[in-house]
């Protein structure tokens, strides 16, 4: 069941040192073009669907674009919706690099959100920075612990992390609901905690738009992840295991330790995603709150080709789809769920480089091929 992950497309084995940089840039551009093509194709298929059902495609995409980018409010909505996806995208991308599939971001996100909310209920009287940082740390820790479980199971018993993660997602949702309703329930019919203290609420960048500093945190995290994979020994080990477990072991890397750490770090990112949603959007833990941030994170990571900056772009795109969908519904009278169709199409198309290659003859002189996510 082991599949080789090679998301970064380092094609240059024998390439000379002088042309390495330009090769890297070219490979990155190829990756970008490849993802852009998948998005375009998904939009075209959706357009055909709309035409079949008698909708005005021009109006639909126009209002979608305006909704996402046409105003300050629209842009902030786009960024706001992109923020949790950035982190769930990292959650999947980090594990990808080590050759693991973290499909459990959804469950890790729930534990992160719950831990964050519980800490944020108690930070009364602390300075703002600490009152925000402590709950986020708790979120990251909770996500790390829950994320490490499939890593441990894989390392110890060989159980496939995809299946155990899916099971752990369901368990996490049931467990957090149970804990909330049993021990921390606020008065009322909804399974939710009390409101977190004011000090822990993330400050808004532009008042009235809802956009918080979380987006900067996400971009800083992209830089950190890029540095981790580019400049640290541990980051190198991650990728060594991701490329070839046996070779990494031969080179003295404990692949089991890396597997646990990779799933743990991935879980940490998803946990922080949950924490940010609590501190900037919900201001409490609400049972079953996630509209699938963890699963969309898979799409974000795949579309971003596992590259941290690619993840940023992909998260922004999905955030834009989300906020644009709202205005499409309003102005073109097309149900906004069409954007979920676009997302689904993008994932399927990006998963299959061979499909895209079959549709256009991609003949690159230097043979930089879009890599299989497989």
């Amino acid at each position: 069941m082991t599949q080789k992950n090679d998301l970064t497309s380092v094609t240059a084995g024998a390439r000379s040192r002088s042309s390495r940089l330009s090769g890297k840039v070219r490979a990155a551009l190829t990756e970008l073009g490849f993802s852009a093509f998948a998005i375009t194709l998904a939009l075209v298929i959706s357009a055909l669907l709309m035409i079949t059902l008698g909708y005005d495609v021009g109006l639909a995409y126009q209002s979608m674009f305006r909704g996402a980018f046409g105003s300050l409010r629209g842009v902030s909505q786009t960024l706001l919706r992109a923020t949790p996806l950035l982190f769930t995208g990292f959650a999947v991308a980090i594990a990808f690099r080590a050759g693991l599939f973290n499909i459990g971001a959804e469950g890790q996100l729930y534990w992160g959100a719950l831990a964050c909310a519980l800490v944020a209920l108690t930070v009364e009287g602390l300075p703002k920075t600490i009152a925000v940082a402590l709950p986020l740390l708790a979120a990251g820790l909770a996500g790390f612990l829950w994320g490490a479980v499939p890593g441990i199971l894989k390392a110890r018993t060989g159980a496939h992390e995809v299946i155990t993660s899916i099971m752990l997602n369901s368990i996490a949702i049931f467990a957090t609901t149970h804990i909330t309703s049993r021990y921390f329930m606020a008065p009322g019919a909804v399974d939710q905690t009390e409101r977190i203290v004011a000090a822990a609420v993330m400050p808004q960048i532009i008042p009235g738009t809802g956009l918080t500093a979380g987006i900067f945190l996400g971009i800083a995290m992209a830089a950190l992840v890029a540095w981790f994979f580019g400049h640290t020994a541990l980051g190198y080990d991650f990728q060594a295991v991701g490329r070839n477990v046996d070779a990494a072991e031969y080179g003295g890397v404990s692949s089991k330790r890396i597997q646990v750490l990779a799933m743990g770090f991935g879980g940490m990112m998803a946990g922080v995603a949950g924490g940010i949603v609590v501190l900037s959007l919900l201001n409490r833990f609400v049972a079953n709150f996630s509209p699938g941030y963890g699963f969309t994170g898979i799409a974000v990571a795949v579309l971003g080709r596992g590259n941290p900056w690619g993840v940023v772009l992909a998260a922004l795109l999905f955030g834009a789809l989300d906020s644009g969908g709202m205005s499409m519904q309003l102005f073109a009278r097309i149900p906004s769920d069409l954007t979920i169709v676009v997302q689904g199409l993008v994932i399927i198309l990006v998963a299959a480089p061979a499909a895209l290659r079959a549709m256009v003859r991609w003949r690159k002189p230097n043979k930089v091929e879009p890599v299989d996510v497989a």
Partner: protein
Amino acid sequence: MWLEILAVVFNLRTLNAAIRMSTPIALAAMGGAFSERAGVINIGLEGMLLVGAFAGAVGSYATGSALLGTLIGVAAGAATAAVFSIFTVEFRANHVVAGVGINILALGLTTWLMQVVWRTRGISPAVARVQSIRVPLISSIPVIGEVIGVQSPFVFVMIALIVGGWILLFRTPLGLRIRMTGEHPEAADTVGINVRFIKHFSVILGGALCGFGGAYLSIGNIGRFSMGMSAGRGFMGLAANIFGQWNPIGGLGASMLFSYADAVQIRLQTMEIALPHQIIQMIPYLLTIVILAGGVVKSRPPAALGNHYRSGGDA
């Protein structure tokens, strides 16, 4: 309280409910068994169930016939699986990513189209549904009569399909070819088996089974479609398939076990007995992890599961 709980646990009506509730899960599990025995990891079962439920309801709404609706549901499940198998087998898409894509696409399409068709984003209006039947002789037998005497026709067809699926998989040459494809595609190819055809066949058959299970959810039960109505049953089917060791009958057993726990939990909830129902709902997933980790029996998935195979003869 304990007496009441025991009364619910050892109750024929609970068993009746458990069999009914296991129908879509067992069908999804068998869909997973066929797909994975042929070497294709199928995370998309959830989406195929959902598409089956939606298409079944729309078909029943449009034609006024629940039987036609069911057939449309089956066809739609198979069509969804065909998209999945074309991408995974022909275009060598990563099985897990494509499966996740199928699930998201199915959720988006059904939620979107239900608004196009019914102008509502919650629950559809009532459509023609398949009524439960009372089986003449069986229903008068004391114990068995209470359990399966009055059931949806879907339940009987499901049991027949499971038995048929088991025979197909373990007692026919085609079944042997499917299993060989999942274990060792190179060897299968060498002896002249069309590996790609076998994979497409198995995945699409699995999709048709999910479509049937989905149709049961909408028109075999309440006669309506609601948004996201598969509600994790496809993932439960995935679990039941592993629990049942990639065997349709084992999958049915696991599905019944899961559904039994669920039926008990639901009945206790209606009786307002304060047992933490979320904990009971977790049990199937916990058990599956234990099984996967080799805690009880050694579980072994098909050897070439998730791999792509390209025959030397292919381009």
